[in-house]
């Protein structure tokens, strides 16, 4: 690794000030994407600003139909949280399925969303559960957050502080994991808010998106068969060594139908 300055601020304001004053800074959260990239010399930030000391970013709370998760909360903490398990079991299950134990013990929800890997799991939930992303300076609604491949509405020095998920009447997440990395080849969350259904899709395109036609079909009739002929999201489907675009097209429908079937059979 190239030499770099390491900072561990204890307040949010200090973290942002460090970022603004550095030549080529990067925030460090779980580090499971950034650190391998640095050891491969595919990134060489001048300053790493570790957010681990910001205790204000940790924690889980349920209040008035909203589940709030602090940005520095680890995937393993979300998976094991009794509050999440009872208020939004689909999200606990999603967190339990991220990567492996090492990733879940280090990785954080804020880090995952700031990175916006096209195959990350949380983005599907953020869209399906109509989340609001709180930062050090504003609130960003889910629908305006994901902009493209690794592109979000965040500014370079902006820090996610917490994510507020709307608690649906029922929700399920189904993914087709890559067998090695357990990234979502395609992952779909179906969330039913008293008959109004939202569907978040990840892994399929450059960034997570909603499946509008699926939402309309399921809001009219909550049945896997309602998705047989529903139109797919109008995105450029990813194609890589793991799955062709055609295969991902197929998986989006199948994962959405499996999630719907699980909920319909309850």
């Amino acid at each position: 690794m190239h030499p770099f300055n390491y900072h561990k601020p204890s307040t949010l304001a200090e973290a942002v000030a460090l970022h603004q004053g550095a030549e080529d800074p990067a925030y460090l959260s779980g580090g499971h994407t950034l650190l391998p990239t640095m050891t491969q010399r595919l990134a060489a930030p001048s300053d790493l600003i570790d957010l681990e000391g910001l205790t204000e970013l940790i924690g889980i709370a349920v209040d008035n139909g909203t589940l709030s998760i602090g940005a520095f909360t680890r995937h393993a903490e979300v998976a094991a949280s009794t509050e999440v398990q009872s208020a939004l079991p689909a999200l606990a299950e999603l967190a339990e399925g991220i990567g492996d134990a090492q990733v879940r013990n280090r990785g954080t929800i804020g880090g995952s969303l700031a990175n916006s890997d096209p195959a990350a799991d949380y983005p599907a939930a953020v869209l399906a559960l109509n989340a609001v992303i709180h930062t050090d300076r504003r609130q960003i609604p889910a629908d305006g957050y994901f902009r493209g491949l690794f592109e979000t509405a965040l500014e370079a020095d902006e820090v996610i502080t917490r994510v507020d998920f709307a608690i649906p009447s029922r929700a399920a997440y189904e993914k087709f994991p890559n067998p090695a990395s357990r990234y979502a080849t395609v992952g779909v969350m179906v969330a039913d808010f008293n008959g109004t259904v939202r569907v978040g899709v990840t892994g399929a395109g450059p960034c997570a998106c909603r499946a509008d036609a699926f939402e309309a079909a399921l809001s009219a009739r909550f049945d896997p068969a309602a998705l047989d002929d529903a139109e797919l999201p109008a995105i450029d489907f990813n194609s890589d060594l793991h799955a062709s675009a055609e295969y991902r097209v197929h998986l989006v429908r199948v994962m959405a139908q499996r999630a719907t079937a699980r909920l319909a059979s309850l």
Partner: protein
Amino acid sequence: MEQSGEHLIPVERATVWRSLNDPVVLARCISGCQSMEQLADDRFAATVKARVGPVRATFEVALTLTDIHPPESYVLQVEVKGKAAGFGKGLAEVALAEAEDGTTLLRYSVAGRVGGKLAQIGARLIDSAARKMADDFFSALHEALDPAADRQQSANPS
């Protein structure tokens, strides 16, 4: 890695052709381009700082034009070297056709390979990243040639 696409550019073909041979315009349209030098009529050298997600690496890019048929088409040979990051090689066929009302239809197809660490760590992202870079390039070219262009339209992936 293979991909292709087309862009309708609302200026005449001769202008588009000139821009595709102009190092100043090329430099402006390549995202992260830090320098662009014309070594000969048909050869350029560029330094590009690529930013895709966590990856921030500087690449030396050598561009060579072959099969030049002004103002209709050329083949662009691209060689990319990043010090520790790996290397890449590609061929881009670019063709310009006159379209209605003095506009120009630009078609391109790109085929390439990457090696080294870039390929190891980025294998699952190379195609999406390459598509984004190509889209960004042609959108920027579109805008450079037609400042009145609807930014919203050029920002959408084709």
